[in-house]
């Protein structure tokens, strides 16, 4: 069964909608396509781009190369036995010194100060309140996250960096990627009116306010923003717990 409405729509189709609406000549197509492309970029970084997940093997110097189409990361972690994505802690203190050097580990270990906390440094898992082979929460204090290590991202050198005690050979990496053209670039159909509003704004036929209104309108229909009874039910179940109530 064919249909004219898909989840994604090519920019050429959106531009054609605009030209038809405004009764413009085909000579306007190319300048308007560029505007549509700029709208794709603008909305892509805020709402439209969808992440994908890959597994990246670690280099010998405990770094992992960012993929060529990388734009922005959303999750870095390892996979647990149930297929779950277990995120790593982001360690902003991890130095980016010598990130591209094969001798990175030797170089960053040379200048370490004595900050060992005994058991923690021997454990592959980074855990809060870990003591004597187990962990527990302290009343009144957040439980913290059980995480399997830490990392940081060196955007300039395009690598993910890990501390010397990182024990895994690869990491899962979820990231926003640069879209590739498949004959044409595509955007979610629910955002096509926002693209048209962007073109009108830049052609002095609309306003910035109208564009942002259309982005907001379209964003409500995106998958990740969609509210269903099923998800509400799940939130209610997960938030219902044995706990102190005020």
């Amino acid at each position, binding site marked *: 069964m064919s249909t004219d409405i898909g989840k994604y729509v090519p*920019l*050429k189709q959106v531009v054609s909608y605009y030209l038809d609406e405004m009764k413009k*000549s085909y*000579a306007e197509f*190319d300048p308007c396509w*560029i505007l549509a492309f700029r709208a794709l970029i603008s909305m892509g970084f805020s709402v439209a781009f969808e992440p994908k997940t890959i597994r990246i093997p670690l280099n010998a110097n405990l770094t992992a190369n960012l993929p060529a189409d990388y734009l922005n990361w959303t999750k870095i972690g390892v996979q647990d036995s149930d297929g779950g994505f277990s995120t790593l802690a982001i360690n902003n203190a991890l130095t980016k010194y010598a990130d591209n050097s094969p001798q990175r580990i030797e170089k960053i270990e040379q200048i370490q100060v004595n900050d060992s906390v005994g058991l923690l440094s021997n454990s592959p898992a980074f855990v809060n309140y870990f003591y004597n082979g187990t962990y527990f929460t302290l009343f009144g204090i957040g439980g913290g996250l059980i995480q399997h290590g830490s990392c940081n991202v060196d955007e300039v050198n395009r690598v993910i960096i890990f501390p010397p005690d990182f024990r895994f050979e690869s990491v899962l990496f979820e990231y926003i990627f640069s879209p590739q*053209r498949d*004959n044409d670039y595509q955007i979610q159909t629910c955002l096509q009116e926002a693209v048209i509003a962007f073109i009108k704004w830049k052609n002095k036929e609309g306003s910035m306010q109208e564009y942002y209104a259309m982005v907001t309108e379209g964003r409500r229909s995106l998958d990740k923003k969609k509210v269903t009874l099923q998800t509400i039910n799940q939130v209610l179940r997960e938030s219902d717990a044995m706990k102190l109530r005020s």
Partner: protein
Amino acid sequence: MAIPYSKKQLIQRIMQHVTNGFPDDDFSISENEMLLYIDAGIPYVLKGQMFENAKVFNVFEIPEAYLITYLITPLTQYTPTNEWMGNLPQTPLALPTGYNITDAYISQDGLGRGQSIFFTKTKRVPYRNNMPKPSGVFARINGQTIYLQSYNGMSLLNQNLYVEMPISRTDDIDAPMVLPDDAIQALFDYVCLKIKDRYGMPKDVVVDNIGAGNKSS
């Protein structure tokens, strides 16, 4: 089938009108000279009709009656820039881009028409390559020459280029004019006006009470 009108017929009509009959040997305007007036008059009339139509729909459009689609072949490669070039049937009229050539596409027999070509205004050519391009063929116009280049540099060898454009010229003086009937009268008036200027038509003196013969005052 409607009777086709040629420029030859229009010239004949204008001559008869101007000379109030059939032109004699004293009529010094040649057919070729009158043809120039007609070729110049067609765009003049066309633009007037475009603006007239714009009053109805508030949109600037070429009336379809002026349009003809030409097959431009063969395309040859312009080696300095690796573009492909072809010769248009005439220098496009000085209308805005998209109106001087209303459509162009590449087509192969049996495969159907291809996607329309993107025309790049000359002032955009120097910086157009700095921006991403939609898939397709781009074109720019220099006088009567059209330069083509695919967005990915693909060869256009042996491709058939079809160009749809309003024209003012015809292959010869007997070829049918591509002109709507409601433009013929305006064109006729335009050419007659120019001919009268050019010919220096003697006018009857309509001031009465002046005797015939040479005047001394």
